[in-house]
Protein backbone atom coordinates (compact mmCIF):
# COMPACT_ATOMS: atom_id res chain seq x y z
CA UNK A 1 0.00 0.00 0.00
CA UNK A 2 2.72 2.40 1.10
CA UNK A 3 4.93 1.52 -1.86
CA UNK A 4 2.22 2.07 -4.45
CA UNK A 5 1.54 5.46 -2.85
CA UNK A 6 5.15 6.42 -3.48
CA UNK A 7 4.94 5.12 -7.04
CA UNK A 8 1.84 7.21 -7.71
CA UNK A 9 3.47 10.27 -6.22
CA UNK A 10 6.59 9.64 -8.29
CA UNK A 11 4.60 9.40 -11.51
CA UNK A 12 2.93 12.75 -10.87
CA UNK A 13 6.17 14.35 -9.76
CA UNK A 14 8.11 12.90 -12.70
CA UNK A 15 6.15 14.74 -15.35
CA UNK A 16 5.88 17.91 -13.30
CA UNK A 17 9.67 18.08 -13.18
CA UNK A 18 10.47 16.84 -16.67
CA UNK A 19 7.97 18.89 -18.66
CA UNK A 20 9.29 22.47 -18.32
CA UNK A 21 12.82 21.63 -19.47
CA UNK A 22 11.74 19.30 -22.26
CA UNK A 23 9.11 21.75 -23.50
CA UNK A 24 11.64 24.58 -23.77
CA UNK A 25 14.02 22.34 -25.74
CA UNK A 26 11.23 21.18 -28.07
CA UNK A 27 9.84 24.65 -28.78
CA UNK A 28 13.09 26.56 -29.09
CA UNK A 29 15.50 23.95 -30.49
CA UNK A 30 13.82 20.88 -32.01
CA UNK A 31 10.99 22.63 -33.83
CA UNK A 32 13.19 25.36 -35.43
CA UNK A 33 15.85 22.78 -36.33
CA UNK A 34 13.28 20.62 -38.14
CA UNK A 35 11.61 23.59 -39.85
CA UNK A 36 14.95 24.83 -41.12
CA UNK A 37 15.12 21.69 -43.25
CA UNK A 38 11.73 22.43 -44.80
CA UNK A 39 12.60 26.08 -45.52
CA UNK A 40 15.18 25.01 -48.07
CA UNK A 41 12.45 23.53 -50.27
CA UNK A 42 10.23 26.61 -50.57
CA UNK A 43 10.36 29.85 -52.51
CA UNK A 44 10.76 32.92 -50.30
CA UNK A 45 9.85 36.58 -50.63
CA UNK A 46 11.70 38.26 -47.78
CA UNK A 47 10.52 36.40 -44.67
CA UNK A 48 7.25 35.30 -46.32
CA UNK A 49 7.07 31.70 -47.50
CA UNK A 50 5.91 31.11 -51.09
CA UNK A 51 5.25 27.97 -53.11
CA UNK A 52 7.07 24.62 -53.11
CA UNK A 53 10.42 24.94 -54.88
CA UNK A 54 11.82 21.40 -54.88
CA UNK A 55 15.59 21.51 -55.21
CA UNK A 56 15.61 24.93 -56.89
CA UNK A 57 17.28 26.64 -53.91
CA UNK A 58 20.07 24.08 -53.98
CA UNK A 59 20.48 24.55 -57.74
CA UNK A 60 20.72 28.30 -57.26
CA UNK A 61 23.29 27.85 -54.50
CA UNK A 62 25.40 25.83 -56.93
CA UNK A 63 25.18 28.30 -59.81
CA UNK A 64 26.37 31.87 -60.40
CA UNK A 65 26.90 34.00 -58.30
CA UNK A 66 26.53 31.87 -55.16
CA UNK A 67 28.65 28.96 -56.36
CA UNK A 68 31.95 30.86 -56.33
CA UNK A 69 31.19 32.38 -52.93
CA UNK A 70 30.29 28.96 -51.58
CA UNK A 71 33.44 27.28 -52.88
CA UNK A 72 35.68 30.06 -51.59
CA UNK A 73 34.02 30.02 -48.16
CA UNK A 74 34.29 26.21 -48.01
CA UNK A 75 37.98 26.47 -48.89
CA UNK A 76 38.53 29.00 -46.09
CA UNK A 77 36.73 26.81 -43.53
CA UNK A 78 38.82 23.81 -44.58
CA UNK A 79 42.10 25.76 -44.40
CA UNK A 80 41.12 27.07 -40.97
CA UNK A 81 40.31 23.54 -39.75
CA UNK A 82 43.68 22.22 -40.92
CA UNK A 83 45.60 25.20 -39.53
CA UNK A 84 43.88 24.96 -36.14
CA UNK A 85 44.35 21.19 -35.96
CA UNK A 86 48.07 21.45 -36.74
CA UNK A 87 49.10 24.61 -34.89
CA UNK A 88 46.62 24.98 -32.04
CA UNK A 89 46.43 21.31 -31.13
CA UNK A 90 50.20 20.76 -31.09
CA UNK A 91 50.77 23.90 -29.06
CA UNK A 92 48.00 22.85 -26.69
CA UNK A 93 49.66 19.46 -26.29
CA UNK A 94 53.06 21.07 -25.68
CA UNK A 95 51.61 23.37 -23.00
CA UNK A 96 49.73 20.47 -21.39
CA UNK A 97 52.90 18.36 -21.30
CA UNK A 98 54.86 21.26 -19.82
CA UNK A 99 52.16 21.77 -17.16
CA UNK A 100 52.15 18.01 -16.47
CA UNK A 101 55.89 18.00 -15.84
CA UNK A 102 56.03 21.13 -13.71
CA UNK A 103 54.27 20.61 -10.42
CA UNK A 104 55.62 23.81 -8.90
CA UNK A 105 53.71 26.83 -10.19
CA UNK A 106 51.32 24.59 -12.14
CA UNK A 107 48.27 26.26 -10.65
CA UNK A 108 49.37 29.73 -11.69
CA UNK A 109 50.33 28.74 -15.23
CA UNK A 110 47.15 26.72 -15.67
CA UNK A 111 45.02 29.67 -14.60
CA UNK A 112 46.83 31.97 -17.04
CA UNK A 113 46.67 29.48 -19.92
CA UNK A 114 42.90 29.14 -19.63
CA UNK A 115 42.24 32.87 -19.08
CA UNK A 116 41.52 33.86 -22.73
CA UNK A 117 38.90 31.10 -23.01
CA UNK A 118 36.61 33.06 -20.67
CA UNK A 119 36.83 36.21 -22.83
CA UNK A 120 34.04 37.14 -25.19
CA UNK A 121 35.14 36.97 -28.82
CA UNK A 122 33.94 40.56 -29.14
CA UNK A 123 36.54 41.60 -26.58
CA UNK A 124 39.23 39.36 -28.09
CA UNK A 125 38.49 40.65 -31.61
CA UNK A 126 38.61 44.33 -30.70
CA UNK A 127 41.64 43.86 -28.50
CA UNK A 128 43.60 42.41 -31.40
CA UNK A 129 42.24 44.95 -33.83
CA UNK A 130 43.87 47.59 -31.64
CA UNK A 131 47.05 45.56 -31.14
CA UNK A 132 47.38 45.13 -34.92
CA UNK A 133 46.38 48.64 -35.99
CA UNK A 134 48.61 49.64 -38.95
CA UNK A 135 49.52 53.07 -37.50
CA UNK A 136 49.18 53.04 -33.73
CA UNK A 137 49.14 49.32 -32.96
CA UNK A 138 51.93 48.17 -30.66
CA UNK A 139 52.72 45.10 -32.78
CA UNK A 140 53.52 47.12 -35.87
CA UNK A 141 55.47 49.63 -33.81
CA UNK A 142 57.66 46.88 -32.42
CA UNK A 143 58.12 45.33 -35.87
CA UNK A 144 58.94 48.74 -37.36
CA UNK A 145 61.39 49.52 -34.57
CA UNK A 146 63.22 46.27 -35.20
CA UNK A 147 64.51 48.03 -38.29
CA UNK A 148 62.31 46.29 -40.81
CA UNK A 149 59.54 48.75 -41.75
CA UNK A 150 58.26 46.26 -44.35
CA UNK A 151 57.31 43.90 -41.53
CA UNK A 152 54.81 46.46 -40.27
CA UNK A 153 51.61 46.14 -42.25
CA UNK A 154 47.82 46.17 -42.07
CA UNK A 155 47.57 42.54 -41.02
CA UNK A 156 43.78 42.47 -41.05
CA UNK A 157 43.42 44.73 -44.10
CA UNK A 158 45.54 42.72 -46.52
CA UNK A 159 43.87 39.87 -48.41
CA UNK A 160 47.03 37.77 -48.09
CA UNK A 161 47.36 38.05 -44.30
CA UNK A 162 43.78 38.56 -43.06
CA UNK A 163 42.80 34.89 -42.75
CA UNK A 164 46.10 33.73 -41.19
CA UNK A 165 45.81 36.64 -38.74
CA UNK A 166 42.32 35.50 -37.75
CA UNK A 167 43.69 31.99 -37.21
CA UNK A 168 46.39 33.48 -34.98
CA UNK A 169 43.81 35.42 -32.92
CA UNK A 170 41.73 32.24 -32.67
CA UNK A 171 44.84 30.45 -31.42
CA UNK A 172 45.39 33.09 -28.73
CA UNK A 173 41.80 32.77 -27.55
CA UNK A 174 41.45 28.97 -27.70
CA UNK A 175 44.81 27.26 -27.09
CA UNK A 176 44.07 26.88 -23.37
CA UNK A 177 41.11 24.63 -24.16
CA UNK A 178 43.01 21.71 -25.78
CA UNK A 179 45.77 22.29 -23.22
CA UNK A 180 43.37 21.67 -20.31
CA UNK A 181 41.75 18.66 -22.02
CA UNK A 182 45.17 17.12 -22.72
CA UNK A 183 46.31 17.88 -19.17
CA UNK A 184 43.25 16.07 -17.80
CA UNK A 185 44.09 13.17 -20.13
CA UNK A 186 47.71 13.08 -18.95
CA UNK A 187 46.66 13.21 -15.29
CA UNK A 188 44.34 10.24 -15.87
CA UNK A 189 47.23 8.04 -17.05
CA UNK A 190 48.50 5.74 -14.30
CA UNK A 191 51.96 6.78 -13.12
CA UNK A 192 52.86 3.08 -12.89
CA UNK A 193 53.35 2.94 -16.67
CA UNK A 194 55.70 5.89 -16.61
CA UNK A 195 57.65 4.62 -13.58
CA UNK A 196 58.02 1.16 -15.11
CA UNK A 197 59.31 2.58 -18.38
CA UNK A 198 61.78 4.79 -16.53
CA UNK A 199 63.11 1.82 -14.58
CA UNK A 200 63.56 -0.01 -17.89
CA UNK A 201 65.72 2.90 -18.98
CA UNK A 202 63.42 4.48 -21.55
CA UNK A 203 64.18 8.10 -22.40
CA UNK A 204 61.60 10.81 -21.67
CA UNK A 205 61.12 11.30 -25.41
CA UNK A 206 60.40 7.62 -25.88
CA UNK A 207 58.00 7.57 -22.92
CA UNK A 208 56.08 10.45 -24.47
CA UNK A 209 55.92 8.91 -27.95
CA UNK A 210 55.28 5.29 -26.99
CA UNK A 211 53.19 5.60 -23.83
CA UNK A 212 51.71 9.02 -23.17
CA UNK A 213 50.78 10.08 -26.71
CA UNK A 214 48.93 6.83 -27.57
CA UNK A 215 47.07 6.95 -24.25
CA UNK A 216 45.96 10.49 -25.04
CA UNK A 217 43.93 9.19 -27.99
CA UNK A 218 40.53 9.82 -26.32
CA UNK A 219 41.47 13.47 -25.63
CA UNK A 220 42.63 13.76 -29.24
CA UNK A 221 39.27 12.44 -30.46
CA UNK A 222 37.31 15.02 -28.47
CA UNK A 223 39.54 17.90 -29.58
CA UNK A 224 39.47 16.88 -33.24
CA UNK A 225 35.67 16.63 -33.28
CA UNK A 226 35.15 19.92 -31.45
CA UNK A 227 37.70 21.65 -33.73
CA UNK A 228 35.94 20.28 -36.79
CA UNK A 229 32.54 21.52 -35.66
CA UNK A 230 33.96 24.88 -34.60
CA UNK A 231 35.90 25.38 -37.85
CA UNK A 232 32.94 24.69 -40.15
CA UNK A 233 30.62 26.88 -38.07
CA UNK A 234 33.22 29.64 -37.70
CA UNK A 235 31.32 32.92 -37.44
CA UNK A 236 32.00 35.21 -34.48
CA UNK A 237 35.63 36.18 -35.00
CA UNK A 238 35.43 36.73 -38.79
CA UNK A 239 32.18 38.68 -38.33
CA UNK A 240 33.60 40.96 -35.64
CA UNK A 241 36.82 41.68 -37.55
CA UNK A 242 35.72 41.45 -41.19
CA UNK A 243 31.99 42.13 -41.12
CA UNK A 244 29.37 39.94 -42.79
CA UNK A 245 31.11 40.17 -46.19
CA UNK A 246 34.40 38.70 -44.99
CA UNK A 247 36.50 41.82 -45.68
CA UNK A 248 38.93 42.51 -47.12
CA UNK A 249 37.50 41.40 -50.48
CA UNK A 250 35.94 38.21 -49.15
CA UNK A 251 39.31 36.89 -47.99
CA UNK A 252 37.88 35.95 -44.58
CA UNK A 253 34.49 34.74 -45.81
CA UNK A 254 33.17 31.55 -44.23
CA UNK A 255 30.15 29.31 -44.76
CA UNK A 256 28.44 30.68 -41.65
CA UNK A 257 28.98 34.30 -42.77
CA UNK A 258 27.51 33.48 -46.18
CA UNK A 259 24.57 31.80 -44.45
CA UNK A 260 24.05 34.93 -42.34
CA UNK A 261 24.20 37.24 -45.39
CA UNK A 262 21.72 35.13 -47.31
CA UNK A 263 19.39 34.86 -44.30
CA UNK A 264 19.28 38.49 -43.24
CA UNK A 265 20.70 40.42 -46.21
CA UNK A 266 23.74 42.66 -46.09
CA UNK A 267 24.80 46.16 -47.08
CA UNK A 268 26.51 44.91 -50.24
CA UNK A 269 24.24 42.19 -51.52
CA UNK A 270 21.01 43.86 -50.42
CA UNK A 271 17.86 41.80 -49.99
CA UNK A 272 17.93 38.42 -48.28
CA UNK A 273 17.54 35.02 -49.93
CA UNK A 274 15.94 32.88 -47.24
CA UNK A 275 15.53 29.86 -49.54
CA UNK A 276 19.14 29.74 -50.72
CA UNK A 277 20.31 30.53 -47.18
CA UNK A 278 18.36 27.60 -45.78
CA UNK A 279 19.77 25.33 -48.49
CA UNK A 280 23.24 26.41 -47.38
CA UNK A 281 22.20 25.81 -43.76
CA UNK A 282 21.22 22.24 -44.63
CA UNK A 283 24.59 21.74 -46.33
CA UNK A 284 26.57 23.13 -43.38
CA UNK A 285 24.57 20.94 -41.02
CA UNK A 286 25.27 17.90 -43.23
CA UNK A 287 29.01 18.65 -43.40
CA UNK A 288 29.23 19.08 -39.63
CA UNK A 289 26.96 16.15 -38.78
CA UNK A 290 28.47 13.64 -41.21
CA UNK A 291 32.01 14.85 -40.55
CA UNK A 292 31.63 14.60 -36.79
CA UNK A 293 29.93 11.17 -36.96
CA UNK A 294 32.44 9.62 -39.39
CA UNK A 295 35.34 11.33 -37.66
CA UNK A 296 34.43 10.10 -34.20
CA UNK A 297 33.90 6.57 -35.53
CA UNK A 298 37.33 6.50 -37.18
CA UNK A 299 39.05 8.13 -34.23
CA UNK A 300 37.40 5.78 -31.71
CA UNK A 301 38.68 2.82 -33.74
CA UNK A 302 42.15 4.39 -33.64
CA UNK A 303 41.84 4.70 -29.84
CA UNK A 304 41.30 0.96 -29.57
CA UNK A 305 44.19 0.12 -31.90
CA UNK A 306 46.59 2.36 -30.00
Amino acid sequence: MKLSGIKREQRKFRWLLLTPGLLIIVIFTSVPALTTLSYAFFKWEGFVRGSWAGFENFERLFSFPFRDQFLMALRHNTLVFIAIMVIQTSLGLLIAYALFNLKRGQRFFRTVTFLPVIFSLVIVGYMWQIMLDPYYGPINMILGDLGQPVWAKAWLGDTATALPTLVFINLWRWVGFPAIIFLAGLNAISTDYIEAARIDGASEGKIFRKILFPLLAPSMTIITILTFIGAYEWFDLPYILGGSNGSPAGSTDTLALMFYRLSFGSIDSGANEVGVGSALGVIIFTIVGVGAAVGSKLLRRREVEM
Partner: protein
Amino acid sequence: MKLMFSKTFFRAVLIFNAFAILIPVLFIFNSSLRETSDFALTPFKLATDPAWSNFASVWQDGDFAIYLKNSLIVTGGSLILIIICALGAGFVLGRYEFRGHSLIMAFVLSGMLIPAKLAILPLFIQLKWMNLLDSHLGLILVYAAGALPAAIFIMSGFFRTLPADLDNAARIDGASEFQLLRRVLMPLVRPGMAIVAIYSAIPIWNDFFLPLVFLQDPEKKTIMQGLTMFFGQYSSQWGVLFAGLTMAALPLIVLYLVLSEQFIKGLTAGAVKG
Protein backbone atom coordinates in the same frame (compact mmCIF):
# COMPACT_ATOMS: atom_id res chain seq x y z
CA MET B 1 66.54 15.89 -27.43
CA LYS B 2 67.61 15.91 -23.80
CA LEU B 3 67.00 19.64 -23.67
CA MET B 4 63.50 19.17 -25.12
CA PHE B 5 62.44 17.22 -22.04
CA SER B 6 64.22 19.24 -19.37
CA LYS B 7 62.42 21.18 -16.67
CA THR B 8 64.07 24.37 -17.95
CA PHE B 9 62.51 23.90 -21.36
CA PHE B 10 59.04 23.29 -19.90
CA ARG B 11 59.37 26.34 -17.69
CA ALA B 12 60.45 28.41 -20.70
CA VAL B 13 57.40 27.23 -22.68
CA LEU B 14 55.03 28.19 -19.87
CA ILE B 15 56.67 31.54 -19.19
CA PHE B 16 56.58 32.44 -22.88
CA ASN B 17 52.94 31.36 -23.06
CA ALA B 18 52.05 33.41 -19.98
CA PHE B 19 53.67 36.49 -21.51
CA ALA B 20 51.89 36.00 -24.83
CA ILE B 21 48.57 35.83 -22.99
CA LEU B 22 49.08 38.52 -20.37
CA ILE B 23 50.88 41.26 -22.31
CA PRO B 24 47.97 42.22 -24.63
CA VAL B 25 45.55 42.15 -21.69
CA LEU B 26 47.80 44.28 -19.47
CA PHE B 27 48.51 46.61 -22.38
CA ILE B 28 44.78 47.32 -22.74
CA PHE B 29 44.34 47.82 -18.97
CA ASN B 30 47.32 50.13 -18.80
CA SER B 31 46.25 52.16 -21.84
CA SER B 32 42.74 52.58 -20.48
CA LEU B 33 44.24 54.71 -17.73
CA ARG B 34 45.97 57.12 -20.14
CA GLU B 35 44.72 60.11 -22.14
CA THR B 36 44.29 59.42 -25.86
CA SER B 37 46.71 62.21 -26.83
CA ASP B 38 49.32 60.93 -24.40
CA PHE B 39 48.87 57.36 -25.69
CA ALA B 40 49.33 58.42 -29.34
CA LEU B 41 52.76 59.89 -28.53
CA THR B 42 54.13 57.02 -26.44
CA PRO B 43 52.02 53.85 -26.57
CA PHE B 44 54.38 51.94 -24.29
CA LYS B 45 54.40 53.78 -21.02
CA LEU B 46 53.13 52.76 -17.63
CA ALA B 47 50.15 54.75 -16.47
CA THR B 48 51.97 56.07 -13.41
CA ASP B 49 49.51 58.94 -13.15
CA PRO B 50 46.19 57.16 -13.86
CA ALA B 51 43.60 59.19 -15.76
CA TRP B 52 40.13 57.95 -14.87
CA SER B 53 38.48 60.29 -17.39
CA ASN B 54 38.17 57.47 -19.97
CA PHE B 55 36.08 55.39 -17.58
CA ALA B 56 33.97 58.44 -16.78
CA SER B 57 33.30 58.99 -20.51
CA VAL B 58 32.33 55.35 -20.99
CA TRP B 59 29.95 55.44 -18.08
CA GLN B 60 28.30 58.69 -19.14
CA ASP B 61 28.06 58.53 -22.94
CA GLY B 62 28.22 54.88 -23.89
CA ASP B 63 24.87 53.64 -22.59
CA PHE B 64 27.12 51.15 -20.87
CA ALA B 65 25.05 51.04 -17.71
CA ILE B 66 21.95 50.04 -19.72
CA TYR B 67 23.84 47.35 -21.64
CA LEU B 68 25.30 46.00 -18.43
CA LYS B 69 21.91 45.89 -16.74
CA ASN B 70 20.39 44.13 -19.78
CA SER B 71 23.15 41.53 -19.81
CA LEU B 72 22.61 40.89 -16.11
CA ILE B 73 18.87 40.42 -16.68
CA VAL B 74 19.34 38.09 -19.65
CA THR B 75 22.16 36.03 -18.11
CA GLY B 76 20.52 35.91 -14.67
CA GLY B 77 17.10 35.03 -16.06
CA SER B 78 18.49 32.28 -18.28
CA LEU B 79 20.54 30.90 -15.42
CA ILE B 80 17.57 30.67 -13.03
CA LEU B 81 15.46 28.96 -15.69
CA ILE B 82 18.25 26.56 -16.65
CA ILE B 83 19.08 25.59 -13.04
CA ILE B 84 15.45 25.00 -12.05
CA CYS B 85 14.65 22.93 -15.15
CA ALA B 86 17.94 21.01 -15.01
CA LEU B 87 17.52 20.25 -11.32
CA GLY B 88 14.06 18.81 -11.88
CA ALA B 89 14.80 16.89 -15.05
CA GLY B 90 18.22 15.78 -13.78
CA PHE B 91 16.64 14.45 -10.58
CA VAL B 92 14.01 12.45 -12.46
CA LEU B 93 16.45 11.09 -15.05
CA GLY B 94 19.16 10.40 -12.49
CA ARG B 95 17.05 8.75 -9.75
CA TYR B 96 13.85 7.32 -11.22
CA GLU B 97 13.50 4.18 -13.29
CA PHE B 98 10.52 4.28 -15.63
CA ARG B 99 9.41 3.35 -19.11
CA GLY B 100 10.57 5.87 -21.69
CA HIS B 101 13.58 6.83 -19.57
CA SER B 102 16.17 5.99 -22.21
CA LEU B 103 14.05 7.57 -24.93
CA ILE B 104 13.95 10.89 -23.08
CA MET B 105 17.67 10.62 -22.38
CA ALA B 106 18.36 10.08 -26.09
CA PHE B 107 16.22 13.09 -26.92
CA VAL B 108 18.15 15.25 -24.46
CA LEU B 109 21.47 14.05 -25.88
CA SER B 110 20.37 14.79 -29.45
CA GLY B 111 19.60 18.35 -28.35
CA MET B 112 23.32 18.81 -27.68
CA LEU B 113 24.13 18.14 -31.34
CA ILE B 114 21.92 20.81 -32.88
CA PRO B 115 23.81 24.02 -33.62
CA ALA B 116 21.46 26.89 -32.68
CA LYS B 117 23.01 29.16 -35.29
CA LEU B 118 21.71 27.10 -38.18
CA ALA B 119 18.16 27.16 -36.86
CA ILE B 120 18.31 30.94 -36.56
CA LEU B 121 15.89 31.70 -39.41
CA PRO B 122 12.92 29.61 -38.24
CA LEU B 123 13.67 30.75 -34.71
CA PHE B 124 13.53 34.37 -35.86
CA ILE B 125 10.18 33.87 -37.60
CA GLN B 126 8.83 31.79 -34.71
CA LEU B 127 9.79 34.42 -32.12
CA LYS B 128 8.19 37.10 -34.28
CA TRP B 129 5.00 35.06 -34.39
CA MET B 130 5.10 34.47 -30.63
CA ASN B 131 5.66 38.20 -30.05
CA LEU B 132 8.98 37.43 -28.38
CA LEU B 133 11.21 39.24 -30.85
CA ASP B 134 13.05 42.25 -29.43
CA SER B 135 12.37 41.02 -25.89
CA HIS B 136 14.61 39.75 -23.13
CA LEU B 137 12.22 36.89 -22.39
CA GLY B 138 12.57 35.56 -25.95
CA LEU B 139 16.34 35.66 -25.65
CA ILE B 140 16.23 33.94 -22.24
CA LEU B 141 14.07 31.09 -23.59
CA VAL B 142 16.35 30.53 -26.58
CA TYR B 143 19.48 30.54 -24.39
CA ALA B 144 17.82 28.13 -21.95
CA ALA B 145 16.89 25.78 -24.81
CA GLY B 146 20.50 25.83 -26.01
CA ALA B 147 22.06 25.15 -22.61
CA LEU B 148 19.48 22.75 -21.14
CA PRO B 149 20.45 19.50 -22.90
CA ALA B 150 24.00 19.58 -21.51
CA ALA B 151 22.78 20.99 -18.18
CA ILE B 152 20.24 18.16 -17.74
CA PHE B 153 22.86 15.62 -18.73
CA ILE B 154 25.40 16.95 -16.23
CA MET B 155 22.82 17.18 -13.42
CA SER B 156 21.47 13.67 -14.00
CA GLY B 157 25.04 12.40 -13.74
CA PHE B 158 25.46 14.09 -10.35
CA PHE B 159 22.13 12.75 -9.07
CA ARG B 160 22.97 9.23 -10.22
CA THR B 161 26.19 9.06 -8.17
CA LEU B 162 24.37 9.65 -4.85
CA PRO B 163 23.67 6.45 -2.84
CA ALA B 164 20.13 5.06 -3.19
CA ASP B 165 19.88 4.56 0.60
CA LEU B 166 19.44 8.31 0.98
CA ASP B 167 16.11 8.21 -0.84
CA ASN B 168 14.81 5.22 1.08
CA ALA B 169 15.85 6.63 4.44
CA ALA B 170 14.13 9.94 3.65
CA ARG B 171 10.98 8.15 2.45
CA ILE B 172 10.82 6.00 5.54
CA ASP B 173 11.08 9.19 7.60
CA GLY B 174 7.96 10.33 5.77
CA ALA B 175 9.52 12.82 3.37
CA SER B 176 7.58 13.60 0.21
CA GLU B 177 9.37 13.36 -3.15
CA PHE B 178 9.64 17.14 -3.24
CA GLN B 179 11.13 17.25 0.27
CA LEU B 180 13.55 14.49 -0.73
CA LEU B 181 14.78 16.58 -3.64
CA ARG B 182 14.74 19.92 -1.86
CA ARG B 183 16.08 18.97 1.59
CA VAL B 184 18.18 15.83 1.08
CA LEU B 185 19.55 15.70 -2.46
CA MET B 186 19.80 19.32 -3.54
CA PRO B 187 22.48 20.24 -0.98
CA LEU B 188 24.50 17.26 -2.21
CA VAL B 189 24.48 18.23 -5.89
CA ARG B 190 25.70 21.80 -5.31
CA PRO B 191 29.02 21.14 -7.13
CA GLY B 192 27.00 20.03 -10.16
CA MET B 193 24.88 23.15 -9.98
CA ALA B 194 28.05 25.26 -9.92
CA ILE B 195 29.37 23.51 -13.03
CA VAL B 196 26.04 23.94 -14.83
CA ALA B 197 25.90 27.60 -13.83
CA ILE B 198 29.34 28.37 -15.23
CA TYR B 199 28.87 26.17 -18.30
CA SER B 200 25.69 28.11 -19.13
CA ALA B 201 26.41 31.63 -17.90
CA ILE B 202 29.75 32.36 -19.56
CA PRO B 203 28.70 31.73 -23.18
CA ILE B 204 25.43 33.64 -22.58
CA TRP B 205 27.20 36.62 -21.04
CA ASN B 206 29.76 36.60 -23.88
CA ASP B 207 27.33 36.01 -26.75
CA PHE B 208 26.65 38.70 -29.30
CA PHE B 209 25.11 36.66 -32.13
CA LEU B 210 21.58 36.10 -30.81
CA PRO B 211 21.17 39.70 -29.56
CA LEU B 212 22.47 40.84 -32.96
CA VAL B 213 19.68 38.96 -34.69
CA PHE B 214 16.85 39.23 -32.13
CA LEU B 215 17.21 42.68 -30.55
CA GLN B 216 16.70 45.99 -32.36
CA ASP B 217 15.66 48.34 -29.54
CA PRO B 218 18.79 50.20 -28.29
CA GLU B 219 17.31 50.14 -24.78
CA LYS B 220 17.38 46.33 -24.77
CA LYS B 221 20.84 45.59 -26.17
CA THR B 222 23.33 43.52 -24.20
CA ILE B 223 26.88 44.41 -23.25
CA MET B 224 28.75 42.54 -26.00
CA GLN B 225 26.36 43.75 -28.67
CA GLY B 226 26.63 47.25 -27.18
CA LEU B 227 30.41 47.03 -27.39
CA THR B 228 30.22 46.61 -31.18
CA MET B 229 28.14 49.81 -31.47
CA PHE B 230 30.44 51.55 -29.05
CA PHE B 231 33.47 50.78 -31.21
CA GLY B 232 31.88 52.38 -34.25
CA GLN B 233 30.96 55.44 -32.22
CA TYR B 234 34.32 56.12 -30.57
CA SER B 235 36.64 54.84 -33.27
CA SER B 236 39.14 57.69 -32.85
CA GLN B 237 39.07 57.99 -29.07
CA TRP B 238 41.37 55.16 -28.18
CA GLY B 239 41.41 55.88 -24.48
CA VAL B 240 37.64 55.45 -24.32
CA LEU B 241 37.82 52.23 -26.36
CA PHE B 242 40.43 50.79 -23.98
CA ALA B 243 38.28 51.72 -21.00
CA GLY B 244 35.19 50.16 -22.64
CA LEU B 245 37.04 46.90 -23.28
CA THR B 246 38.36 46.87 -19.72
CA MET B 247 34.93 47.44 -18.21
CA ALA B 248 33.36 44.72 -20.36
CA ALA B 249 36.11 42.20 -19.54
CA LEU B 250 36.73 42.94 -15.88
CA PRO B 251 33.67 41.32 -14.20
CA LEU B 252 34.47 37.91 -15.67
CA ILE B 253 38.21 38.20 -15.04
CA VAL B 254 37.63 38.94 -11.36
CA LEU B 255 35.19 36.04 -11.03
CA TYR B 256 37.62 33.79 -12.85
CA LEU B 257 40.52 34.67 -10.56
CA VAL B 258 38.37 33.82 -7.52
CA LEU B 259 36.80 30.65 -8.93
CA SER B 260 39.32 29.47 -11.54
CA GLU B 261 38.92 25.77 -10.63
CA GLN B 262 35.15 25.89 -11.09
CA PHE B 263 35.49 27.90 -14.30
CA ILE B 264 37.88 25.41 -15.85
CA LYS B 265 35.69 22.46 -14.80
CA GLY B 266 32.55 24.24 -15.97
CA LEU B 267 33.81 25.31 -19.37
CA THR B 268 35.36 21.95 -20.19
CA ALA B 269 32.34 20.00 -18.85
CA GLY B 270 30.86 19.79 -22.33
CA ALA B 271 34.02 18.12 -23.62
CA VAL B 272 34.61 15.47 -20.98
CA LYS B 273 31.07 14.41 -20.15
CA GLY B 274 31.47 11.20 -22.18
